[in-house]
């Protein structure tokens, strides 16, 4: 009956379906974590031990760049800037 169908374990799905489901869940969570970061102060660890702080604005679909504002650099504050993700090792923010 239909109740048996609903109880069928996920492992009966094809590997493609399982992978697609995992991909969707992981991506949605990542996008939500980015949404939570919008407008907040974020510290970025760049290569060669460079630390910068900025307010996160947005990113592109393939997460290649972070658009930020009030970027604090060793040589002053930049009102708006684009950080290349290839230059970044990590980023941290508080909630």
């Amino acid at each position, binding site marked *: 009956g239909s109740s048996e169908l609903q109880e069928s374990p996920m492992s009966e799905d094809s590997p493609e379906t399982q992978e697609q489901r*995992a991909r969707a869940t992981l991506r949605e969570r990542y996008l939500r974590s980015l949404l939570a970061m919008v407008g907040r102060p974020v510290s970025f660890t760049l290569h060669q031990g460079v630390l910068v702080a900025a307010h996160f604005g947005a990113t592109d679909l393939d997460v290649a760049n972070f658009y930020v504002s009030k970027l604090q650099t060793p040589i002053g504050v930049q009102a708006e800037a684009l950080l290349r993700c290839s230059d970044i090792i990590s980023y941290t923010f508080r909630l």
Partner: protein
Amino acid sequence: MNEWMKKSPLEWEDYVYKEVTVVASENKEYKGWFLTADPVSANIVLVNFLEDGSLSVTGIMGHSVQTIDVVNEGDHRMREKLTHLFMSGDYKGHSP
């Protein structure tokens, strides 16, 4: 492209809800609860619950990930906490 970026979404999903240590470029080390890995960039999101009830969220760029190790398999309570994170708009804090 490093080993981490070559993994499949199902392999990334294995780390979800577990406490991990990640070693990234330039020997930078990070520890926290694995929330997700972006399937597009392989960026990892780790969460740490701080004593004052706030939350520290760290993103590690996929291209810089060298190694990742599970240090704690987690439990039902942690899973519950992490599942609802970022799902309902503003974060309201947690009970330490």
